[in-house]
């Protein structure tokens, strides 16, 4: 490591504090835990004020549509009396084209309120476009830092499109090669500019999504006279799941099952220069979803406000071929052309619905915009150029990086269930050698949503 690197990393806490406007140390307990609820409620926002800020910014109140044809399609493969009704929240209708605008609206509002001149976000995804759009509206400067290209200077087409979109909103885009040192340069930029860290994992980044959970609960209640039995959430950094679940529960939907869904990229290393361009999904995948669930504080703030295992009832994965299959199905059967990554939980819901009764409801809580680069065709064309084979068959046989297997027919599109206890065990592994106090156990019970006996058993 160079001196420049070490010197800067040593100032991490100081730079963070200055750039997020939150002193995280006041929420820390003596042992391993911290006061999550206080961190969330302390920042001066209520669900009503968040709603108001979002509506002023063309964010939220997105259409909720029943996917009648896709439901009918799923029922073709379900037992008699099974095949839940599938609803979809069309989040692509938000300013900048994804649910990420909900998070950005609050982060940018806070930056403006605290008097920052600009905002910075580290993201290769839709969040960059969301921050850039909201910053443009708020009259703030904006820098987006992306992990974008490999050592041969080849970029993911999806990420190039997001860079274009950020620039369309007047933001500066810094594009970096593959590696976790992105965080180093991100800190350097925060230090150099004095801008606000519009982190995906700040309380603003998570509370902004609570309105989505509220809308789902209220809209299904108004239409159907009950809360949905299940909500499927695409899971990467854990914020989408945390915010949606908190919103649902706050609105009264306490029994709605929260199902996480990720694209299965098992075997591809996220920091690998050679694996980088072999994947067809740059977010919503297990490469983020699993590590961020089992260790949320790996994020770019001292304590992540995205803590998915607190709320997750079930975690399923689907392969890349299945998500592409449902992306095409959504366009062909429902007339909705949307971006592939946002359809991860839709692919899972298609299969999950077949395990639920036909009078039950599963809500898919997002869609995202689509366009050049960020679309099935360029992504499949790019995969082929990188030596990935496209096949029809059983999607469960897919080997990420080697092939993409589209289900031969809808009946073969199946989710694979992850073992929740394995995830909890993985979360707990760093406490194996630690002597835990009662307060620590209570924190772990809240973190993993289980009783103390279960924690002891898992440890």
């Amino acid at each position, binding site marked *: *490591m160079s001196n420049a690197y070490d010197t800067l990393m040593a100032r991490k806490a100081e730079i963070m504090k200055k750039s997020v406007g939150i002193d995280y140390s006041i929420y820390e307990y003596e042992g391993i835990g911290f006061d999550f609820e206080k961190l969330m409620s302390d920042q001066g926002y209520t669900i009503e004020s968040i709603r108001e800020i979002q509506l002023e910014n063309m964010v939220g109140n997105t259409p909720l549509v029943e996917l009648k044809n896709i439901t009918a399609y799923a029922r073709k493969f379900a037992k008699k009396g099974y095949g839940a009704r599938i609803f979809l929240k069309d989040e692509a209708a938000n300013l900048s084209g994804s649910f990420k605008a909900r998070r950005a609206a609050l982060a940018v509002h806070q930056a403006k309120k605290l008097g920052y001149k600009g905002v910075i976000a580290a993201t290769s995804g839709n969040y960059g476009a969301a921050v850039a759009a909201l910053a443009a509206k708020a009259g703030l400067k904006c820098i987006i830092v992306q992990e974008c290209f490999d050592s041969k200077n080849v970029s993911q087409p999806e990420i190039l499109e997001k860079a274009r979109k950020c620039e369309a909103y007047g933001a500066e885009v*810094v*594009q970096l090669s593959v590696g*976790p040192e992105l965080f180093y340069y991100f800190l350097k930029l925060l230090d150099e500019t004095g801008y606000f860290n519009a982190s995906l994992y700040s309380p603003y980044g998570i509370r902004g999504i609570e309105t989505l959970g509220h809308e789902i609960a209220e809209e299904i209640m108004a239409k159907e006279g009950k809360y949905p039995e299940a909500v499927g959430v695409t899971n990467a950094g854990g914020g989408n799941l945390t915010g949606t679940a908190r919103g649902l529960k706050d609105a009264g939907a306490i029994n709605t099952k929260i199902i996480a869904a990720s694209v299965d990229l098992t075997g591809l290393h996220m920091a690998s220069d050679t694996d980088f361009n072999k994947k067809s999904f740059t977010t919503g995948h297990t490469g983020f979803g699993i590590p961020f669930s089992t260790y949320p504080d790996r994020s770019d703030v001292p304590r992540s406000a995205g803590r998915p295992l607190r709320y997750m009832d079930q975690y399923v994965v689907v392969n890349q071929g299945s998500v592409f299959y449902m992306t095409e*199905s959504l366009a062909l059967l429902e007339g909705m052309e949307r971006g592939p990554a946002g359809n991860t939980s839709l692919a899972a819901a298609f299969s999950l619905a077949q395990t639920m009764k036909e009078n039950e409801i599963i809500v898919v809580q997002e869609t995202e915009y689509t366009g050049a680069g960020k679309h099935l065709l360029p992504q499949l064309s790019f995969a082929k150029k990188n030596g990935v084979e496209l096949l029809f068959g059983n999607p469960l046989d897919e080997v990420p990086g080697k092939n993409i297997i589209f289900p031969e027919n809808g009946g073969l599109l199946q989710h694979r269930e992850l073992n929740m206890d394995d995830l909890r065990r993985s979360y707990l592994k760093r406490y194996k050698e630690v002597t835990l106090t009662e307060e620590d156990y209570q924190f772990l019970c809240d973190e993993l949503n289980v009783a103390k006996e279960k924690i002891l058993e898992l440890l």
Partner: protein
Amino acid sequence: MINKGSYVRIRKTLLQPDERSSNLPEETKKVPYKMWIKGYTLEDGELFDIAEIKTIDGRIVKGRIKEHNPAYKHNYGDFVPEALELRNRIKGDFHE
């Protein structure tokens, strides 16, 4: 010749392989950590010269000019016959 004030994309090496994070897969560890950024050149120069630019945000960054008037080149890719087959299969499967 690239005139002062032209819009360019530069590339800069931020960390040499031996300066990179220790916790990396082998294939990543052996390559430098690089950045691309766009802006207006502050001096006359040629392609592949080292030059200073002023970015959209107003920051001054130095690097090697890789592109003059950088265009967006991402598109809808090459024709993918499998995508067409996918459409046909879904339609057939749904209506069957």
